[in-house]
C-alpha cells in the first residue's frame, strides 16, 4: 500500500519515465500514440498529487499575517477562508458551518475573538478542531 503522498509521487515519476522510454523506442505511430495517451493521463495524476502536496505543506507552515493581509482570505474567488481568534489565525475553508466563508452573518478574513466568545460556550473544543495557519502581527 502506498499511503504516503511522497511515495505515490515517486511511483508516478517512475511510470512517466517508463512511458517516455517506450515512446522513444517505438517504431510505429499507432504505438507512439498508444503510449502518449497513457503518458498524458499519468502527467495529469502527477499534477494533482503535486497540488495536494503543496496544499498540505502550506497548511503546515505557520506564517504571520497583518490584519490587512488577513482581509484577502475571505473565501471569495476560490481563496481560503481564514479567521483570527485573539490573534491566532485559523483555517475555516472546509468547516461546514462556514459556507462561502461566511458564518451566521460574520465574514471571514477578520479578527472575531470577542464575537466568538459571545456565541460559543464550548469554545475550546471548537478551536481544537480547527487548523492553525499563523498569527496576527501589528
Amino acid at each position, binding site marked *: 500500500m502506498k499511503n504516503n503522498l511522497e511515495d505515490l509521487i515517486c511511483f508516478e515519476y517512475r511510470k512517466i519515465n517508463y512511458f517516455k522510454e517506450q515512446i522513444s523506442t517505438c517504431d510505429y505511430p499507432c504505438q507512439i500514440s498508444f503510449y502518449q495517451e497513457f503518458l498524458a493521463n499519468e502527467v495529469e495524476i502527477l499534477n494533482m498529487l503535486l497540488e495536494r502536496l503543496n496544499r498540505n505543506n502550506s497548511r503546515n507552515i505557520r506564517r504571520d499575517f497583518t490584519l490587512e493581509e488577513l482581509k484577502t482570505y475571505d473565501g471569495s474567488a476560490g481563496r481560503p477562508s481564514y479567521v483570527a481568534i485573539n490573534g491566532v489565525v485559523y483555517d475555516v475553508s*472546509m468547516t461546514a*458551518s462556514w*459556507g*462561502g466563508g*461566511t458564518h*451566521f452573518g460574520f465574514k471571514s478574513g477578520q479578527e472575531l475573538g470577542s464575537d466568538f466568545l459571545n456565541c460559543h460556550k464550548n469554545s475550546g473544543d471548537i478551536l481544537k478542531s480547527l487548523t492553525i495557519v499563523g498569527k496576527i502581527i501589528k
Partner: protein
Amino acid sequence: MSINNTECKYSHSKNRMAKIIIKDSIKSLDKKEGKKIKLIWLEAAGCSGNIISLLNAESPDLKYFLENMVKLVYSNSLMRLEGEAAFEQFMDTLSDEYILVVEGAVSTKSNGMYNIIAKYEEKWVTGMEAVKLAGERAKYILAVGTCASFGGISSARPNPSGSLSVKEFIKKEVINIPGCPANPQWVIGTIAYILSFGKPELDDKGRPIMFYGITIHDRCTRRSYFDKGIFAKKLGDEECLFKLGCRGPVTKTDCPIRRWNSSINWPVGDNSPCIGCAQEKFPDGMEPFVKY
C-alpha cells in the same frame, strides 16, 4: 455460519411495511370522522406564503386534509365567510377544543397596530390580539413558517414592527414548523401525528424531530463532492455549492429526500445553494445568500 444461509428475518415484512403503516394512518384518521377537531389558521405579520404552500399539498392533499382530518373554522384565505361574520366564527370557536396554527410573526409595536386582521364590533382586531386570544385556550399551537417559529423575515433587522416569534410572545409550548414556506407535508404530517398519537417528539427548538432531525448537509445528494473537496464555482454548476455560501450544513430539514412541488425538485437539485430558510437565524444570519 455461512453468509449465504443467512436471510434477513424481516425482509418479507419490510416489503409490506409501508403499506401497513399507510393503512394504519388512514384508519386512525378516519376514526376521528364526525368529531373532527377544529382548526384556526391565523395569518399574522407575514406574507401568507404558508397557506399558499399548503394548497400545494399532495399525499394527502388539501381536500383530504379538510374533509378527513380537521374542521377548518377560520382562515383568512380559505374560508367562505368574510368580514365580521368570519371573525364571529373565530370567536365562537374559542370556547371549543381546537388546534391553533399561526403563520407570520406577532407584531407587537404600537400595540400590534402594524398587523390588523379583522374588524369586529367596530374595533380593529390586531394579529397580536387574535394570537393571544386563541393561544390561551388552544389545545395545540403550531407556528408554521420561519416568521412564526423564530421571527424570520418579519423580525429581520431593524425590525420596525417589533415582531416576535409566537413562542416569545405567548410563552407557552409551541410546535415550530419553520421553513419559508413550510413544506405542506411538514404541516399536514405534524397535524396527522397530533390527531393519531398526540404531541410529536420535539427538539430543543420545538421542531418535530421526524422532519427536522438532521441537517440538509447530512442527506445532501452532493455530499460526496463536499467530502472530496470538489466545489461549484458559479451558480448552475453541478458540484457541491458550499463555497458559494450553501447553508445546508447549518439547516435542519429533510428537503433532500422530501423535496418540493410534488417532490419534483429542491434548491440544491436545481443548482442553487440552500439559503437556510428554515434556520432560526434566517434571514440576517444566513446572509449573504450567494457568495462568489
